[in-house]
């Protein structure tokens, strides 16, 4: 081995702590960068990318099987503009009743499943991606869509489809797959479609999937659809869905997460750059004295530079490799969650991210080491030999004098003044903590905002009375208008309408008569059209005073009288109206002018909702009935006892009372919370590592001084307090600067998330930071700093005085 090689190997071996810290920092930085980079890549038009990968269907057309033969439909593949087609596939929409182990609540049924008979997942259009199990290989098997809105169906789960004759067709889940075009709730062997067609309530049909040369606008797609319909038997096209419809649905949820993931991804990468640069510069810089020795014994400056660059690159390369491995593993988990958020299939770490991060890290390590080693290499040998043990005279003396005058124990004041003798290193530490504090503050704010969004989706109702049959699984629940989760376009979406025969007046009387009722209102839902919009608009009509329901206002006030309404941002945007304007809605052919008194925060139906007094629609729908009632109880009333009593009173009407508003926690928000937690933890660890590195360097460089003060009688506890005190000011400053930055980031990202979904967020969702929380978050910087310094402080306390005194 050459002399240079021996020097590098010896340097790596002898400076074990530095080697470990460099490797660890590189590992964490690469892990965070791979994760951040993957999220950035995944957040870049996830639907479009998945659509391209799967050869998504521009048009999914549903045909009536009675009116069209497979041959005739096959001919539509040659319609003008069609570039690829798949099908016809036999379809059946069937009602599953459940299955062993599903444990559905009493009277709750599963969502209907649109099952498509496909012998193959691939094809020229809609190349479905399997995420678990295998594709159907025979009768009795089911591949369930990951987007199915019903209960989660795992591999091996059996699903029953009852037939009209009393028998049951049973399918076993053998795979889970995702179609970005959302062409089915599940896929079965084509022969199973016939069997399922005989089940209760089943509707059979045929599906064709098309890709077109021109399909980027609604008009182009309408023309494409007409071209296909022209070749199909007249009247056989029973329905269709364009890729733009699917994209819109996907973007509604995706848009919410892109700014969030982008912010975290950028934070991760920025912080990694900072930490690795800092670690390598510190490692090489602290070796200046050794560099002097090497030059004194005849190493050329070029050899010295190569030796130190190599010395930094070895642990960095090992750390980078481990980090890439960990990053890919972590990103796999996070991207799996992101897949759920984005509704995309098979998101994985883009190879370009791995290449960029690994190459970038090694390049940065080399460049930083080279610059620092060049600087050290240029030192005169005699000066290099003198470098290292003590800070340059003159730095930090004023700070030392100021600290000295503080009424604190001397070890603490010694530590407090220390950062001022190494200002560059102190700035690097402050920056690391600033990033960590920013991340924690942002995460706290984001989590709080999301929680408030979730809270805003729940009503203040203590008890809800359902006037009709219980909802299907995955469907909201009656209270969806005030609390349930939006379920997209599934058949189960929307609240059940009150059946014609129900006596809601009797229900209202029963509720009012029950002891403990403080307030109550009924909620009816209907659909109208509004001037300026093309689709239908949901109207949530309240029977009674609903001002206490807990809706959050973005601006304006809750309506006070019939003829007034409040509307969410997307409705106002679509209709081009503002608070104070009057919009004309058409209900069953009757034009109804409605004055908008406020902008309300509602996310259901993509915000195309209007909330008003039921009497507003009296002329158009005089018999509008409540689908459910929300009840507020007097204070001190036991809710369960109240529900039992009310249930008894409601029994003749068929209504059911339940505690709360029936709305559950959003899975998306839970996932987002988990992601926030993971990313924050990583950033905090990287920040702590930055501090650890800087304090290790500092402590090692000052080990001789440490020996002196220990020889003078400094106890281990005093030593720990001195080393920890070194970072107290740094932690406080980093925290103090990081908190406002985190708040600013939250004020940018959260509204951006709302904007992406077309929503303006109420101030209650944005103003989540209270003074005590801000103080605690600021102290978070201190905690990061202290945690990062505890390791070196313990080492300093344990170091034997005689050894420290001998150390050069």
């Amino acid at each position: 081995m050459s002399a240079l090689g021996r020097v590098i190997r010896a340097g790596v071996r002898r400076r074990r702590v530095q080697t470990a810290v460099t490797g660890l920092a590189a590992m964490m930085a690469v892990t965070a960068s791979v994760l951040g980079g993957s999220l950035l890549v995944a957040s870049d038009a996830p639907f479009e990318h998945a659509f391209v990968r799967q050869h998504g269907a521009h048009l999914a057309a549903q045909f009536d099987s009675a009116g069209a033969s497979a041959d005739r439909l096959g001919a539509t593949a040659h319609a003008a503009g069609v570039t690829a087609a798949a099908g016809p596939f036999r379809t059946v929409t069937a009602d599953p009743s459940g299955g062993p182990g599903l444990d559905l609540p009493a009277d709750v049924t599963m969502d209907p499943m649109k099952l498509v008979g496909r012998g193959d997942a691939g094809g020229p259009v809609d190349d479905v991606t399997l995420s678990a199990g295998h594709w159907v290989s025979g009768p009795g098997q089911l591949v369930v869509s990951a987007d199915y809105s019903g209960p989660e169906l795992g591999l091996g789960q059996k699903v029953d489809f009852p037939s009209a004759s009393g028998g049951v067709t049973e399918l076993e889940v053998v795979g889970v797959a995702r179609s970005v075009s959302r062409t089915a709730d599940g896929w079965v062997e084509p022969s199973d479609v016939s069997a399922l067609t005989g089940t209760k309530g089943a509707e059979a049909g045929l599906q064709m999937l098309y890709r077109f040369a021109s399909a980027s606008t609604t008009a182009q797609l309408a023309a494409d659809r007409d071209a296909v319909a022209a070749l199909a038997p007249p009247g056989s096209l029973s329905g269709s869905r364009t890729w733009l419809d699917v994209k819109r649905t996907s973007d509604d949820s995706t848009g919410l997460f892109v700014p969030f993931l982008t912010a975290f991804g950028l934070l991760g990468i920025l912080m990694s750059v900072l930490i690795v640069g800092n670690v390598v510069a510190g490692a090489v810089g602290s070796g200046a004295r050794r560099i002097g020795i090497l030059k004194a014994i005849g190493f050329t400056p070029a050899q010295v530079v190569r030796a130190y660059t190599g010395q930094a690159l070895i642990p960095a390369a090992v750390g980078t490799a481990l980090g890439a491995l960990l990053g890919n593993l972590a990103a796999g988990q996070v991207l799996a969650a992101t897949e759920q958020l984005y509704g995309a299939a098979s998101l994985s770490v883009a190879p370009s991210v791995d290449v960029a991060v690994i190459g970038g890290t090694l390049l940065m390590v080399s460049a930083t080491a080279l610059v620092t080693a060049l600087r050290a290499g240029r030192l005169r040998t005699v000066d290099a030999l003198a470098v290292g043990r003590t800070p340059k005279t003159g730095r930090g003396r004023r700070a030392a004098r100021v600290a000295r005058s503080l009424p604190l124990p001397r070890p603490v004041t010694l530590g407090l003044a220390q950062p001022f003798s190494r200002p560059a290193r102190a700035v690097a530490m402050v920056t690391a903590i600033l990033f960590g504090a920013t991340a924690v503050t942002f995460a706290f704010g984001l989590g709080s905002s999301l929680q408030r969004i979730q809270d805003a989706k729940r009503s203040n109702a203590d008890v809800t009375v359902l006037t009709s049959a219980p909802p299907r699984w995955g469907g909201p629940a009656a209270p969806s208008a005030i609390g349930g989760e939006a379920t997209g376009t599934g058949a189960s979406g929307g609240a059940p309408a009150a059946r014609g025969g129900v006596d809601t007046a009797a229900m209202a009387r029963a509720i009012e008569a029950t002891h403990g009722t403080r307030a109550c209102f009924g909620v009816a839902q209907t659909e109208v059209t509004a001037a300026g919009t093309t689709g239908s608009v949901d109207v949530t009509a309240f029977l009674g005073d609903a001002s206490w329901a807990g809706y959050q206002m973005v601006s304006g006030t809750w309506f006070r009288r019939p003829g007034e309404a409040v509307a969410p941002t997307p409705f106002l945007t679509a209709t081009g109206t503002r608070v104070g304007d009057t919009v004309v809605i058409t209900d069953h052919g009757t034009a109804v002018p409605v004055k908008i008194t406020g902008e309300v925060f509602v996310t259901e139906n993509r915000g195309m909702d209007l909330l008003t007094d039921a009497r507003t629609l009296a002329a158009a729908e005089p018999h509008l009935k409540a689908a459910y009632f929300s009840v507020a109880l007097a204070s001190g009333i036991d809710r369960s006892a109240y529900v039992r009593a009310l249930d008894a009173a409601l029994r003749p009407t068929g209504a059911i009372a339940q505690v709360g508003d029936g709305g559950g926690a959003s899975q998306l928000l839970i996932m987002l919370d988990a992601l926030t937690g993971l990313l924050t933890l990583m950033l905090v660890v990287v920040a702590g590592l930055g501090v650890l590195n800087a304090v290790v360097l500092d402590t090692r460089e000052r080990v001789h001084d440490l020996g002196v003060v220990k020889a003078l009688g400094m106890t281990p506890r005093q030593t720990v307090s001195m080393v920890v005190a070194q970072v107290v000011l740094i932690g406080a400053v980093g925290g103090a600067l990081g908190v406002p930055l985190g708040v600013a980031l939250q004020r940018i990202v959260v509204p951006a998330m709302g904007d992406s979904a077309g929503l303006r967020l109420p101030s209650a969702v944005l103003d989540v930071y209270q003074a005590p929380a801000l103080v605690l978050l600021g102290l978070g910087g201190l905690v990061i700093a202290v945690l990062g310094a505890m390791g070196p402080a313990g080492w300093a306390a344990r170091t034997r005085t005689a050894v420290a005194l001998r150390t050069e």
Partner: protein
Amino acid sequence: MTMTEPVIELDGVHRRFVDGPAALCDVSLTVRAGEAVAILGPSGSGKSTMLNLIAGLDRPDAGTVTVAGVRVDSLGEAGAARYRRAKVGMVFQFFNLLDDLTVLDNVVLPAEMTGVGRGEARRHASGLLDVLGIARHARAYPGRLSGGERQRVAVARALMNRPPLLLADEPTGALDSASGEEVRALLRELHADGQTVVVVTHDESLAASCATRVVRLADGRIASDTRVVPGAAAGVEGAGAVAR
């Protein structure tokens, strides 16, 4: 000579470092209050090891070390630190002053770690600097002082907590001859004032000028233990009792 209380008692002390010969082998030594002992010997003879054991910077593998009534060999790190504060003042070859503290701040440091009030500590430190002739440098930083002045500062710091024992490790080893003479004179004065002093040195002239007793070490054992008259040209063989 009046027999005073022993300040240092080493009894059957062994110390061996990994893969090396015994640094100290069955060494027993008693130093009484008011003595000025020079420990002489070539490199590797065990001088610094003995000093480190007395200062509580190291522990023997066998035997006991008692200083001013404290069993130093049984102390933990914190106990050893408290012991050094109270019982020992140390002076090093390369001064070991903290370059980023002023002379006065260096000197008051041991008292501050003991919890002595700032005013009282500064008054005492100023008095010491005055006595040692470096009061004018109180607000200066050590880097600006000559070697002799720095070693005076180190001595002032060592005496700050009024220790019963002053340990000096090659106190003139890094000094020019003029500065070395300053330090020799200082040690003589301290001994004359009743301070117990143990000096580890290669410097025969230092031993001759300020020690009342010369202990010579060779290969980790005491080769000779001689009482001398400070300032005399030669030692008085067998003067006084050889400790143990």
